[in-house]
């Protein structure tokens, strides 16, 4: 069933790295944003500072991580719609390659890039972030990959409905970036107006934020089973929707 998956994944990874801005845009920009904002906001702070700003301690690392995830998702939406518009998906389908193999290869590429960017961010953070990075890195990486995977399925729904490649990136951005406002990262979900509160409860980003914040600050996985279940549910629902509405050409 997954015949050709690794070769396709490897080639797609190489192709992505050849994009002008491909590597720089997805890998360097989030890291630079993280460090620049961190140093600006956290000027003068040390790990021992009393009352270290919680945004610097948890919020910004989680925000930067989610930006990595969302930019991976947006890039996937764009790639899928370009491949569809250019007939690349159709050409790949006219081989023994299974459709799910094609999509899986792209998901793996995005997860690899997300993990690589996160790793770079953490390494850079250990040295240049004002308070350093003190988080369970392996667990946090796993949590981010799970979050990315769930958000990717939302991306597939968007990739299924955007009319042309030209609109893919803007439509994706318009859908994803406002999610940040209600996901509880800046304002606690409970203090949002009722409408936004309800909205935040159905967005995977909200659960991703809770999970990531928790894991970053050392929570056990067992305290976040609800968030994991919500992310998994989101994945299942969105995958089912996109399986129904996805167009190959």
């Amino acid at each position: 069933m997954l015949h050709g998956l690794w070769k396709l994944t490897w080639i797609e990874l190489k192709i992505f790295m050849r994009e002008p801005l491909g590597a720089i845009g997805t890998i360097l920009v989030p890291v630079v944003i993280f460090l620049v904002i961190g140093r600006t906001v956290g000027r003068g702070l040390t790990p021992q500072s009393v009352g270290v700003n919680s945004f610097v301690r948890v919020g910004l690392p989680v925000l930067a991580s989610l930006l990595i995830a969302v930019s991976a998702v947006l890039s996937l939406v764009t790639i899928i719609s370009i491949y569809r518009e250019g007939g690349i998906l159709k050409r790949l389908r006219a081989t023994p390659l299974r459709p799910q193999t094609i999509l899986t290869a792209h998901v793996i590429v995005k997860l690899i890039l997300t993990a690589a960017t996160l790793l770079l961010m953490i390494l850079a953070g250990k040295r240049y972030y004002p308070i350093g990075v003190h988080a369970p890195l392996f667990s946090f990486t796993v949590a981010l990959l799970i979050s990315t995977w769930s958000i990717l399925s939302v991306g597939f729904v968007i990739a299924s409905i955007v009319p042309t490649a030209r609109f893919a990136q803007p439509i994706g951005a318009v859908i994803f970036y406002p999610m940040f406002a209600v996901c509880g990262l800046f304002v606690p979900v409970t203090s949002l107006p009722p409408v936004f509160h309800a909205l935040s409860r159905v967005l995977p980003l909200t659960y991703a934020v809770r999970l990531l914040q928790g894991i970053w600050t050392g929570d056990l996985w067992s305290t976040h089973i609800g968030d994991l279940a919500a992310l998994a549910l989101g994945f299942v629902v969105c995958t089912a929707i996109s399986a129904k509405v996805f167009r190959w050409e």
Partner: protein
Amino acid sequence: MGSVIQVSKVRKTYGATVAVDEVSFEVQDGEIFGLIGPNGAGKTTTMECIEGLRKPDSGTISVLGLDPFRQVYKLQERIGVQLQQAQLQKRIKVWEAVDLWASLYRKNAVDGERLLEQLGLTDKRNAWFMNLSGGQKQRLFIALALINDPEVVFLDELTTGLDPQARRAIWELVRGIRERGKTVFLTTHLMEEAERLCDRVAIIEAGRIVDIDSPEKLVSRHCPERTVVLATDDPNAEERFRSIPGVEVENSGDGRFIICGRGEELVTEVIRCLSENRMRVTDFRTILPNLEDVFLKLTGHSIRE
């Protein structure tokens, strides 16, 4: 020689539009079979139904004894496909595409490097897809269609958009595919391409097959007209030509005549008339109808309209 593709009463609609209407034909083992017609006639839809990429609304298709839609993966292993207006990833290298395609098939692929060499792409093996010329892209797509040593090769509008020189080079390659014992099914809206390449053609118009046969037989069946254009200074020329049975003679002045008639015998008759009367001829041309004329006759309009 048996038939490798059997298409029977296939119908495909898109909403209210009937793209393919009760189409039936067979393709024989080892031949180059062409589906010809104007854009929008249903060529690509028919071909994609046969490739298993589309499901016909009704009718049956068998390719190498397989049902293309239900046994699509089994079929894909045994056929090679070139799609109309297909693209690859912009920055995939030529050798990577060939290498990837080779890995997708269960049976042993043919030697990709040798294939690139045969298609004249060896010096482009490290080039990105986006930097290839139109002809090079089409040659790469031919390579990808041949990588699994397929029994049937499908080529959809292979030379559209290519310059005449590249087109001729591609024709040679397609003849080479037949010489390797493979069956070729192609579509084209270029009558010259069909005439030079195809053993048999099916003319399709508005989703229906109008006629199927070899290009020569189609021409002699539907367009038996022959025309001889000649120039002579013989003063009695017109009278002598008019004595040939069943011809129309047009005297265009300056000793130039256009002699129209029907059937294979016309040219012989004209030459016999010239030699029996010892007429001096300064110009002699025959105008034979071609597939283009057949198409015009069968459909009432030119394929370019």
